[in-house]
């Protein structure tokens, strides 16, 4: 079986390369269900810092498998080389399908622009984080570190998802990086660089530069730099921030990435199937593309097929766009650009832009997402879907002022877009922020249709 798997890994790799995919080396490993549950709980890595949340997730995955409610066929980590885990005990066909699927994921990680700034050595990085947390636990007590992790994790979505893509001009953000400091991983900073000299008396008092210089969404980063915390606590905030940023593109490309992988495993495997395998393949495929729940595999796959067809049949460009809907459905102008277009889509899009560009009324009609008479509500429905894909379904919150009312208090602002916040949870998060910042924390949002200031600590 092992040998057979290896043989097929090679065959599929060659086919994938021949068809135009390209990717770094992929290492496959077969793991049992418990190990798979562990890897899933750890977000695809063999080692994470110690926290009960992973234990809870692990239990959930393990029980889900045990009661036969679902199994994880595969996990891929975006690393160099790419690490992929296959579930031991699956049939050879399932493993073949999964391997083809994985090669496409690897190709996606490698080429999609959203993944450009993501470090490829995250496996080692996560292990460093684990070691850092363990050390902190030894020194400061497991419970106090756990308590701090609980606080920090409740802020894990308060990051600027674009942080890794922004290249600031030199000197644009003075406060961001003082000179004369070694550039190291942020959490190492307090250990490598000496603490800044205490301010001279004359410099004390009001700083002329407002803090932060401009509103920022990078609240975790801001706290790590400015909150009155011990170095290990700042280190933990940096760790949480860095790991959150790592997952940003994965969350932002879920539909496209899964659609891409499904498109390719279908394309690579179909010609290789023996007649006996065809039925099993169909069964697996049907399960994968089943229309219950919001199924990113299904939506991504169908939409990519649609893009391929449109660009094969010349259904694009100003001439096509100008046609009325009815004619667009049957328009044909052989161009054969489908595959080329697919590769481009895989490179430049995230889910949000992908759906925005290609989720058309024609597609909705063809896939029976809507009846013709329901077409008028298509724009609204699409808008709701796009909203859901924005910022990983999290509200957008900015830190506006860290010296609110000249009292050293923090003012946050929720970019209200018509959906209100969960007040109980938000209040709990504000309390957590207050504990970190040591001064009252406020959040401007809309409650019951009225602008409201939520506060903690005052």
């Amino acid at each position, binding site marked *: 079986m092992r040998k057979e798997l290896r043989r097929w890994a090679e065959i599929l790799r060659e086919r994938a390369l021949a068809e135009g995919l390209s990717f770094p080396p992929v290492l496959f490993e077969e793991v049992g269900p418990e190990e798979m549950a562990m890897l899933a709980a750890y977000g695809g890595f063999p080692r*994470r810092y110690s926290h009960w949340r992973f234990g809870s997730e692990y239990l959930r995955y393990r029980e889900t498998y045990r009661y036969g409610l679902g199994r994880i066929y595969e996990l891929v980590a975006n690393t160099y080389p790419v690490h992929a885990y296959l579930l031991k005990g699956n049939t050879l066909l399932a493993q073949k399908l999964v391997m083809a699927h994985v090669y496409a994921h690897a190709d996606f990680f490698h080429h999609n622009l959203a993944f450009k700034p993501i470090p490829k050595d995250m496996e080692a990085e996560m292990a460093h984080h684990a070691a850092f947390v363990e050390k902190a636990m030894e020194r400061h007590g497991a419970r106090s570190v756990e308590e701090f992790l609980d606080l920090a994790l409740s802020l894990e979505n308060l990051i600027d998802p674009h942080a890794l893509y922004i290249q600031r001009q030199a000197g644009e953000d003075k406060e961001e990086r003082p000179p004369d400091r070694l550039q190291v991983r942020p959490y190492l900073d307090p250990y490598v660089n000496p603490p800044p000299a205490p301010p001279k008396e004359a410099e004390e008092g009001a700083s002329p530069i407002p803090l932060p210089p401009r509103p920022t969404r990078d609240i975790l980063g801001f706290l790590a730099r400015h909150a009155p915390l011990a170095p290990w606590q700042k280190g933990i905030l940096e760790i949480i921030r860095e790991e959150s940023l790592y997952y940003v593109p994965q969350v932002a490309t879920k539909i496209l990435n899964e659609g891409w992988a499904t498109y390719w495993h279908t394309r690579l495997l179909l010609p290789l199937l023996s007649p006996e395998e065809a039925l099993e393949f169909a069964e697996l495929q049907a399960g994968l593309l089943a229309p219950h*729940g*919001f199924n*990113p595999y299904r*939506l991504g796959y169908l939409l990519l097929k649609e893009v391929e067809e449109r660009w094969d049949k010349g259904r694009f460009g100003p001439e096509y766009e100008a046609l009325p809907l009815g004619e667009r459905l049957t328009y044909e102008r052989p161009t054969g650009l489908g595959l080329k277009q697919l590769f481009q889509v895989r490179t430049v899009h995230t889910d949000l832009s992908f759906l925005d560009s290609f989720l058309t009324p024609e597609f909705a009609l063809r896939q029976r997402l809507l009846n013709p008479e329901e077409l008028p509500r298509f724009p609204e429905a699409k808008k709701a879907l796009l909203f*859901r894909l924005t910022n990983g379904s999290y509200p957008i919150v900015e830190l506006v002022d860290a010296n609110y009312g000249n009292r050293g208090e923090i003012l946050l602002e929720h970019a209200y877009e018509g959906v209100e916040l969960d007040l109980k*949870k938000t209040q709990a998060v504000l309390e957590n922020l207050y504990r970190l910042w040591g001064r009252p924390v406020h959040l401007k949002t809309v409650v019951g249709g009225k602008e409201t200031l939520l506060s903690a600590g005052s």
Partner: protein
Amino acid sequence: MRPIERDLLRFKEIVRGEVKKRAREFLTREELFGQVEGRLVSIPLPQLELPKIVYGEPLGEDLGLGGPGTESLGPSGHVPVAELELEEFLDLMGEALRLPRLRPKGEGEVTEEAFRYTTIARKGPRGLRHVRRTLKESLKRALITGEYRPEAPLLVPEREDLRYKAPRSKPRPHAQAVVLFALDVSGSMREEELRLVKTLSFWITLWIKRHFPRLERRYLLHDAEAWEVTEEEFFRAREGGGTRLSSALLLAEEILKRYPEAFYNRYLYHFSDGENWQGDTPQALEALRRLLPTLALYGYAQVQGPYGQGRFLEDLKEALGKEEGLAATEVHGKEDLPLALRRLLGG
């Protein structure tokens, strides 16, 4: 231990702490009642979810792409679920509510077959080989055949020397119990009071069962007359009429005859509003005096609303308050449940 197992242990520890903290709340959580028949109890503990700034309503989509299903987009906030063995759950509840351990009254008669590896056989699986006995046989053989030399005591067991541990079934006495619930349905019990009774008898049953796995349950209703019912009828029933507490006690005495006290730990629970007919109380007390020494516990819970005027509790305490095996308490509302439960179990 793998790090993930450590995280899991820590999670379970946190869950146990949370269950204990919320024991009072679970007492009245009726959705639990259904599950506890099984072996595992699972309780969602949203309190353990790490709070985040999230939207207050699920973000829908309107394109028939499937509603909130198995695979949902966005924040994957899975509510942590505590999965506990029923016994562990009960022990945590017991600890938090300081419920007393129940001690068996004498040994029960019913025996349980228990296999113990106490004998030796000539055949058996390799894993059960009894080395010492095998060598002993070897030595015997060596001595008989004269192969044994004390200066070089080498023993080589042969096939016929081999001895194995073997099981033998052993009867084991096992404590058993019967619990009898009597409910006064004389009309003054409202829906809310009945709910309290249901909650109490549910937990009483579980707690007794925790100590006596062989537990039989009997139910009776009464107003001026008493009659036996099934469990479901017990919780559904509503009748009207006067109250003669003695009727229940006499019927209980009759039913319990089938469970001789020598072999059974007999528990009798009586829920009433305490508004007994004048003139019946002496009779009831008389019956109780006879019954009490034969019971493990007689629990009397006077359940009444804000305007209740029952006085049987006082009469009972006055007449029999010093007797052992009497557990009497008053319940007015939910908030009395933890204490009432402890009292009724003899704590």
